[in-house]
């Protein structure tokens, strides 16, 4: 391995450690503290009755702040890792599952942290960060030869189009992950009314805002993908499974957006659609494993 590529990998390792720790802290922060109570009562007959109770209480703000700090560290390390690899390869690392997923980790972390700032909701990290950790685990499990920098096959050599197409896809998936997290938290918050979780209104809006970034990004992915296919293969739409699964995802988010004009549909039903839609995202992301077709290259 070239030394820059190796260094990039070490930074990825550092990012993984920071993100795993951050995910743990976010979880502790969102779940809250379990407080056990013992109450001993002495009855008039002279016996003692002990009652036990457990209750959930908000966790200390400190651990939440610590989670955010660690997440920033993770994102910074991952950013350096991507930067080093970009320098080593002379292009953005977007061309196989190792590179694509590493960039996803960076963008998902960044998008999440931006939303955390905008809305001031830290509890969302308890869902987004574990997702990011799952992705990091996947990257660790990929065959190690993908960590090398390879030259590109001719069909992938159209740099600007490929860069925008793929980075838009990663941006879309990252924002959809945040929308998914907000939907999950919404369903929890709307059902159990945990006092320290953000209000359902805010989560509903947060999910929508995330989709308003992800949906145009996914539209661009489809359009630029078509333009790219047109340049490489001569048709702008081939009904290739990777194309159609992205179209499927796009349509599900289309359904979600329409539910917002049917006022009564907001809330639970919209959130449920977001869960389905995110399943479609995961399906599209990992679809290479079950599809043949034109997108079959790229490390799987």
């Amino acid at each position, binding site marked *: 391995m070239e030394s820059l590529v190796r260094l990039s990998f070490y930074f990825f390792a550092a990012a993984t450690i920071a993100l795993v720790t951050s995910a743990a802290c976010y979880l502790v922060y969102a779940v809250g503290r379990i407080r056990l109570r013992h109450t001993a009562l002495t009855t008039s007959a002279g016996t003692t009755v002990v009652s036990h109770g457990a209750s959930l209480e908000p966790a200390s703000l400190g651990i939440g702040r610590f989670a955010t700090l660690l997440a920033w560290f993770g994102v910074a390390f991952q950013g350096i890792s991507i930067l080093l690899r970009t320098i080593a390869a002379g292009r953005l690392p977007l061309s196989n599952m190792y590179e694509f997923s590493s960039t996803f980790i960076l963008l998902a972390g960044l998008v999440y942290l931006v939303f955390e700032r905008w809305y001031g909701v830290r509890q969302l990290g308890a869902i987004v960060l574990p997702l990011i950790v799952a992705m990091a685990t996947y990257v660790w499990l990929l065959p190690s030869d993908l960590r090398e920098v390879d030259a590109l096959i*001719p069909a992938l050599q159209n740099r600007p189009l490929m860069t925008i197409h793929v980075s838009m896809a990663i941006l879309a998936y990252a924002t959809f992950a945040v929308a998914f997290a907000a939907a999950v938290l919404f369903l929890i918050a709307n059902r159990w009314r945990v006092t320290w979780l953000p209000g359902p209104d805010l989560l509903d*809006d947060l999910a929508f805002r995330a989709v308003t970034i992800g949906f145009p990004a996914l*539209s661009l992915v489809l359009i630029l993908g078509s333009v790219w296919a047109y340049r490489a293969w001569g048709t702008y739409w081939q*009904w290739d*499974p990777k194309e*159609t699964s992205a179209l499927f995802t796009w349509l599900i988010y289309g359904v979600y957006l329409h539910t917002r004009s*049917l006022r*009564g549909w907001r809330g639970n039903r919209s959130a449920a659609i977001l869960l389905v839609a995110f399943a479609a995202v995961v399906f599209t992301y990992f679809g290479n494993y*079950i599809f043949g077709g034109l997108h079959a290259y790229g490390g799987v």
Partner: protein
Amino acid sequence: MTHVSLDRPAVNPRALPELVVDRIWRFFCSVRAAIAEIAILALLVLAGTLRGSSVPRTIADTLPFATPLVERWYAWDVFRSLPFASILTVLAVAIAICTINRAPGIWQAIAHPTVVTTHGFLRNAETSATFASALSAPELASQLQDALRAGRYRTIGEERSGEVHLYADRWRYSRLATFPFHLALIMILAGGIVGAAWGFRDNDFIIPEGSVRELGHGTGLTVRLDDFSEVYREDGTPLVYRSDVTIMKNGDTVNTGSMTVNNPLTFGDVVFYQSGFGQAVALKIEDSAGEVLFDDALPLGPFQSKLNPDAPAARMDLVPAGVAMSIVAPDENPANAPELDTLRLRPGDMFFMIRPLGADSPIAAPIGATVSQGESIELGDLSLTFVRERRFSVLQVARNPGIPLFIAASVLLVGGLAVTFYFPHRRIRAIVSPTPGGSEAQLAPVARRDWSAKRVFEQVAGDVGRRIGLESHLRMNEPSPIGEASYRVVAPP
């Protein structure tokens, strides 16, 4: 015995068609139906996507009784099926009708919004702001209007029984952005139809180096491949394939250029793509009278010879000579299945064979010979020269008149979305009422359940307060839990 109610109004015979039309119209206008239509489309797309995967097979393996269903699934070309075309048609019609239906209302909301509101609306708003002032109601209203305008809001005021009703909004024209967006969806479908109806696509337009081929498809173009080159990396993986071509119309050169993968060559609305390449043989064949029957290159590959099915081969009919000719090249990978190779040609050699073609063929049995590059031989009555080995290039040629529609639609689609999402129409309603000490203004956003619109309103209210030098009293109602249609819309029309 049945009782017919006589109280029922007689059905007006003309009402029925109207009723049907009205029903259909309302079906196409309904967002609820649109959701169902998009969901059905999504399901069909999913079925088509999975068809291109191993998922149905896995289902059949785990649930053997599903096998017939899975086989039908694999056999069903979803994207060229009638249900798929129908749902696309229904969606296109729905979008068109929906647009026509909504346009006047949206235009009304932009150009002539309702200004007058109710105290009930302001009271029930989830968030509202109040300003108390010593000024008279019209004076306070005018100050408010100035302050809102400074914040780039359009304001309209109207007096009603001593009170001033205010309406303020921003980015009202973004309400229109939904039209280009939805129109773009129709345009993309139209682009697909136009491309399929008036375009063409030739997936293997093969030209050997130095040869000229007619493109056809009504273009009147002929193409000559001047050169084909390939560049490999050190590790043997391909880096680039390039074809240099001359395009001619009626014998005149109209364009020259080259193409590589991802960099097609465009001439007018015809686009040429590099798609593949292979080996070809340049031949010259004359009959006994010295007449040239063939002087061109023949691509090897599409045909398999029994003499060595592994090797590149070709076949052509020489009808005037009454023979069919086949050509076999040396095996490119002799180590693979050597038992099939009955010819064992050396590199640089070719095997040529003629067979009888038709009833009055001059030959009775096949005649074959191995020929080296540059050599001439006699095969039956024919004299054959193996001029040299060449390469051929496989081009894809396409003309798609739908592309401009597609590009325009893409711009409208992304632009429409961006405007809709990032410049949402913000609206504020207010009533300024006289009080014993002067006047009081109460403002509220039109933003039910829209958290960010409420936040924006709170900012605006703060800014307005600063501009007019009054403290704003923000009031927030605890929002009711979001449920399934758990509340009624109370905003004025």
